[in-house]
C-alpha cells in the first residue's frame, strides 16, 4: 500500500476532507483511495501501490518533452476520465502535471489535497494555494467557482507540459499537430473550451470511448520511461522493513 499524509505546512483538515471526497470517486482513470484514517489533525489515506511516475518524473526519465503520439494517448485517456467524471457531476478541480500519474497501462488522475471543487466547504480560488498557476483557469484565479471548464483548461496545460516541458508555452513551441487543441483548451473564455469528449475525439480520432481509462493492457511508452517504471517496481519489490527481515 501507499500511505499518504498531508504536506507539511498545509491544512490537514482540508486535506482530509479532500481525501474523503476522493475516496468517493471510483472512476476509471482516477487514482483509487482505498482507505481513510487518522484524525482531522492527523489524517491519512492509503492506496494500493502500483508503479507510477508523476508526469514531471516521466519527462525527467525520458530526458525532455514526450513524443506526440504519447501526448495524444495521455491526453485522450485523461480526457476520457474527465468526461466520465463530469457526466456524474464530479469536477476534479486539481488537474496538474504532478497530479497525473503514469502507470504501465496509462495515466491516472491523482492530486488530492491540492484544490478541490465543491462540495468541499469553503473551496475558493483564494485558498487554492499549491496548484500550479499555469493550470488554474483565469475565471477560477479571479475567484470564480470551480467548474468543468476549469478541468479542461488544466488538461490543456497538462498537454502543453507533456509536449513542451512547461504549462504555459508559446504557441509555436507546441508541436504543430497539437497546437490547435491545446490552444482551444486554454481559451480564456470558459465557453470557448471544448467538452472533454471532444478533446478525446481530437486527440485520438476513432478511439472507442470507454476503452482507455482504467485499461489493464500496457501502453507504448519510451524505453527510458519503461526503465524508470520497472526500476521503481523492482525497488519497491525489494523493499522490506529491516527489523523484520531475517
Amino acid at each position, binding site marked *: 500500500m501507499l500511505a499518504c499524509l498531508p504536506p507539511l505546512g498545509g491544512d490537514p483538515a482540508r486535506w482530509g476532507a479532500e481525501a474523503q471526497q476522493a475516496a468517493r470517486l471510483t472512476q476509471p482513470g482516477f487514482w483509487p483511495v482505498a482507505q481513510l484514517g487518522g484524525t482531522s489533525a492527523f489524517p491519512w489515506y492509503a492506496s494500493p501501490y*502500483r508503479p507510477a511516475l508523476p508526469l514531471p518524473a516521466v519527462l525527467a526519465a525520458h530526458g525532455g518533452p514526450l513524443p506526440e503520439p504519447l501526448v495524444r494517448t495521455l491526453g485522450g485517456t485523461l480526457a476520457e476520465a474527465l468526461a466520465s467524471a463530469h457526466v456524474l457531476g464530479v469536477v476534479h478541480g486539481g488537474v496538474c502535471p504532478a497530479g497525473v500519474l503514469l*502507470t504501465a*497501462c496509462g495515466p491516472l488522475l491523482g492530486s488530492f489535497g491540492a484544490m478541490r471543487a465543491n462540495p468541499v466547504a469553503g473551496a475558493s480560488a483564494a485558498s487554492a494555494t499549491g496548484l500550479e498557476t499555469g493550470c488554474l483557469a483565469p475565471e477560477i484565479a479571479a475567484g470564480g467557482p470551480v467548474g468543468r471548464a476549469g478541468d479542461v483548461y488544466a488538461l490543456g496545460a497538462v498537454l502543453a507540459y507533456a509536449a513542451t516541458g512547461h504549462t504555459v508555452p508559446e504557441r509555436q513551441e507546441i508541436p504543430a499537430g497539437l497546437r490547435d487543441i491545446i490552444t482551444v483548451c486554454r481559451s480564456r473564455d470558459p465557453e470557448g473550451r471544448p467538452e472533454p469528449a471532444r478533446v478525446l475525439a481530437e486527440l485520438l480520432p476513432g478511439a472507442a470511448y470507454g476503452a482507455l481509462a482504467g485499461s489493464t493492457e500496457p*501502453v507504448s511508452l519510451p524505453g527510458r520511461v*519503461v526503465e524508470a517504471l520497472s526500476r521503481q*517496481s523492482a525497488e519497491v519489490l525489494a523493499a*522490506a522493513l529491516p527489523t*523484520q527481515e531475517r
Partner: protein
Amino acid sequence: MISPLLHDDPHTVGPFRILARLGGGGMGTVYLARSAGGRTVAVKTLHTRLVADTTLRTRFRLEADAARVIGSGHGAAVVDADPQAPTPWLATEYVLGPPLDTAVEAGGPLPEPAVRALGALLAAGLEQLHRSEVVHRDLKPSNVLVTAQGPRIIDFGIARAFGEEHLTSVGSAVGTPAFMSPEQASGLEHAAAGDVFALAGVLVFAATGLGPFGGGAPTDLLYRVRFGEPDLGRVPEGLRPLLARCLAKDPAHRPSTADLYTALGGTGDAPGDRRGFADLLPDGVLREIARRSDEVWREPPHRLPPPVPAEAPRPEVAPVPGVSRRRLLAVAGGALLGGGLLGGGGWALLGDSGGGGGGAKKKDAVDRPKPPAPLWSTGLWCPDSGGDVMSAGRNLVMRAGIVLCGINAESGKSTWQANIEETWRSTTDGTRVYALRGHEEKAASLAVCEVSQTNGYLGKPLAELAAFDGKEQFNQLLCVVDGIAYLVARSASGKRWYLVAADLDSGKERWRSPVDEPQAAGAPPVLCGGVVGSRVVLCGSPAKDSHFFRLSAHDKGHGRQLWEMSETFAGTPPTRLVADDHNVYLGAESLTARRLSDGGLAWLFGNGRDVGDSAGEERRYGAPVVQEGVVYCVEADRGLIAVDALSGTLNWQEKGLSGRKNQRETAPAIGKRYAYCVDDKGLRAVDLHARKAVWTYETKPLVLTADPKGGRLYVRQEKRTIALPLA
C-alpha cells in the same frame, strides 16, 4: 507469468508467504512470495518427490552458489536459500522482464544495436561467472531475462564449477540441443568457450528469431551442432564474422568473453547506468517489461480448489495421436529384460482427468495406492532406438542421445561416458561393456573392443577382423555371450554382409554366414537379434514402406542358417527380441509365437477377437514381453492381456480400463505385484492379482526396463531417465 496457486501448493516456504505461481518445471516450482517484512521474491523449490535425490540437492545448492556468483547485475540477486531444508528452496529477486524467447515473440527479432548491447552485457555476465570458475552450460533464450536495464542470466540448474565431477548426467543428456556447444553435444567437457558458443547461438536467435542450427528433432539438431554449418544468413552483416568465430567447432578458435564484450561495443556500464539499454528495445518488448512491472502488484489470483476425484475412468472422448514412431531399431543384446518404459513428472489417479464427474466416493480416492516416488532421476536422453537399459555388473549402461553412458544403479549418477553415437555398435554381456571401434578411425579392419568402465575409453581390440570393413558405419554388434561376440558386418572386399561370430579370447573369427544387406538407408541391416539357447535369432530391418521383415535363425555353433521367413508387422517393427526357450513372440495385427526350432507358427492369438475401437491403428497388439511362461502385451486400447506362452490361450485380461490410449510401441515391464504399461496418461501399474490398474504415474515413457535383481524399474523418457521401485 503469474498464475493461481494449486490446491496442494504450500502456504509458506521458509520465511516466505506464497502468493502465486510463476512457473513449474521438471525439477520444481517457482512461486511469487513475500517475506514478513514485505519483500517480494521469486522462490524456487525442489519437487517433494525429488528431495531424496542427493544429486538434485547438490545441483540445487550449486545453483544457489552460481546465482550468488553472478549477482544482481547480471543475474537475479539471491535473497536467501536453504538447500538443506526438507524441501530445498532458493529465494531470489523477482526479475521484471520476459525471457528472450518471449521477448522476440512479442517484439520480433531485435535490431542490431539491441543485439550488440545484449551480447556485450551477456558476455560481461559470463565473464564474471567464469572468473569464479563457474560454467553455465545451459545458456539459451529462455534462460535470459530481458529487463529494461539489460539481460539477466538465470537458471543455473546445471551450472557447475570447473573440474567438479559430472553431476548432471552427461553429454547430450543435458542442455538444450539447439544452443548446445559441439563439445557438449559430443559428451565432452563444455568449458568457458562452450558458453561463448551458446551465447552466440542466443544472439543469432535474438537477431533472427531462430537458433543458428534451426529446429527439429533433438538428434538431428545434435548432429547439426556437431557437424553442420550455422545459418547466419539472416543475421545483420556487421555481426556475422564475429558470431561465426564464436560458433567455431573448435573451442580454441572462439573469442574469449572479454574479446566478445569489446567487439560488441561494451562500455563497462555499471548496472545502474544502463538506462539507455531500454531505448534499444522494440516497443513489444518494452510493453512486456511494463506489463510485468505492473502485474506483480495486482492482487494475486485465488488459489484453485482441489479437483473433484472422478469415480470411474471416463469414456474415451477423442483419440490422442499416437506416440512418436521410433523407426530405427537396435540390437537388444545385453538388455536386462523386456519391457521398456519411462516416465516424467507427477502422478495422476486413474481416471482423474480433472473433469467434473460428480458422485465420487472420497473413500475410494483415499484408499487407492499411489505411485511411488522415484529412486532417482537423471537427465539422460533416450535415443530413437536401443534405449533399453543394459547391465554391467552392478552398474547400468544406457545409450543416451549420441553417447554411451555408465550409470550408477543406486544413485543414477553418471560414472563414465563413451563417444559412441550409433546405438547398434555397443552392447554388454551383463558384466562388461563392448563396442565396435569407431568407423571414422583410420584402421581399416573391424574390431571389437572393451569399453573401460572407468573412463569410457575403448581398449585395445579383443578381436580384429581384417576380412570386414572397419569403416562401415552400419556394422553391428549384436551381443556378446560366453566370450563370443556376434556381429553383422560388411566384408572388406565387397558388398556382402555376414553374421559373424568372433571369439574374444583368441581374437579369431569362428564362423560367418551371409545375411541380407541393409534394406533401408540410414539403418543397420538388423533390427534386433541375439542368442536364444543354441540359436542366433535375427529380425532383419524392413525395406522402406514395406510391412515385412525377415526373421531368421542360425546355429550358434557353426553359423548355418536354420530357417528364414517373412513376417509382417504393424506400427513400429520390433526393437527387441522377445523369446523364451521355445518361441519368438511378436505383436502386430495379432499376437503370434514362432517356433525357434523351425520358424513355424506355434500359435496365433487375437484373430477375429473384438478388441474395440483401435482408433484406426493397424497395430492391435503392442510390443510383448515374456516372463515365466506368460506373454504380456496391451491389446488395442482395452488394456493388458496375459497369454499362456506355450498354448497361446488367454490367461486373463485387464479389467475396467477405458479412456486410455495404449502406447503399443513400448513393451510392458513385469514386476512381482504389478505389470507396468504405458498409455497417454502415463505409466500405469496393473495389479497382477486384481487385474486392474491401481495407479498412473504421469510421464511420457519411451522405453521401460525391469531390473528384478536390483528391484528397480527404469523409465526412459525423451530427456530424462528415472528409476522407480519395481514392485
